[in-house]
């Protein structure tokens, strides 16, 4: 029984590989789907929480670095595809909108940055961080700590690969 299951898995895997090799149209579509689109976990999570309650009950949230602050800044300007916010030195950046962390690392022009995908499928980038307090695939609530930033915080808002104006999130 176990052996036949294994065999079936191997056969299915090989069939997929062979069809992808033979059919270039399908291959392009497949790669496009796999590499460019992402499943919107945050949307499913918010929907699930709304109707069925927390997906992981009994979690002790108080230890989860929630400091419930709003994002405050002195000035806002355009920068690259998004905005640059002028904040104080060693400013602690809170999460603007809850979602799942889909990127942590360095990016050109943005320095150390974190990307959080929210429930509407908008990727919000927090750039120029000096300290990062979240890690990949963390599910972060609104107001929890992203990291620390010195004077300048870069933010971009992208949906389906196209950048959108920051007016809807920052006023």
């Amino acid at each position: 029984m176990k052996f036949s299951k294994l065999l079936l898995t191997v056969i299915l895997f090989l069939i997929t590989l062979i069809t992808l090799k033979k059919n270039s149209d399908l291959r392009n579509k497949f790669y496009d789907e796999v590499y460019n689109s992402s499943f919107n976990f945050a949307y499913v999570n918010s929907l699930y929480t709304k109707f069925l309650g927390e997906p992981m009950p009994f979690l002790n949230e108080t230890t989860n670095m929630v400091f419930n602050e709003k994002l405050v800044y002195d000035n806002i300007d355009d920068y690259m595809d998004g905005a640059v916010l002028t904040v104080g030195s060693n400013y602690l950046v809170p999460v603007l909108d809850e979602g799942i962390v889909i990127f942590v690392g360095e990016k050109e022009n943005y320095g150390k940055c974190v990307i959080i995908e929210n429930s509407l499928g908008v990727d919000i980038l927090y750039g120029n961080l000096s300290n990062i307090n979240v890690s990949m695939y963390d599910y972060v609530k609104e107001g929890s700590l992203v990291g620390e930033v010195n004077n300048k915080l870069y933010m971009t808002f992208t949906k389906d690969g196209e950048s959108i104006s920051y007016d809807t999130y920052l006023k």
Partner: protein
Amino acid sequence: MIHILNKISFHPLFYLITIVMLITGLFKHFILFLFIIITHELGHLLAILIFKWHIKEIVFLPFGGLILIEDDINKPLIEEFIITLMGPLFQLIILYLFPRLSYISIPLLLFNLIPLYPLDGFKLINIFFNKIIPFKYSYLLSLIISFILTFILLFYFHNFLVILSLILILFKTYEAYKIRKHYFNRFLLERYLKRLKFRKKKVINGLCLDRMYRDYKHDFFFKNKYYDEKEILNNLFDFKGKVC
């Protein structure tokens, strides 16, 4: 080792919570949850291997793991107590080694210690009742406590997964309640068929088998005469070729 791995099975509801965790993006929480419950079960497993008990099945339920034991009911209470305690103990070690995981390991630990039927809390209160009241009533009392508590919790929580788990617990409790008479019969039959050695002895007035304790050898005092436990059980089980 291989024969233990072959005994692992997954409850359908476990697959359900796996899917829920994956589509809501809680991969990390799910992996931590798995890590904690596996360590918990390893604690039980270690004690089981030391005492050489027999494992029937290891099931993964939506709220943790469960090791089903296929062994005598009359095994020493202290062994069962240590086996039960090893799980939470291993979880405490995790709590000590990884204090950052406390937000997930403390709730799991506390949930496990609630006296609901297949959880460790139930086993602990059952062992405690076994110590102070006769076997038959202790099992019944623990099951009733589990039943009532499940009902109370069912009204207290408004969460899909919690309610699903509690309904599962309710069914399991009911199943155990249904077979309680067979369970008690097995308890007597084991004492009849096997040469069990108990260190302590108890005298019971009358011939009531319901008043037998676990971990004790019994003498029955009836009409100014002492009867050995074996004689009474002989009367009960030995049909001497008679067919009723």
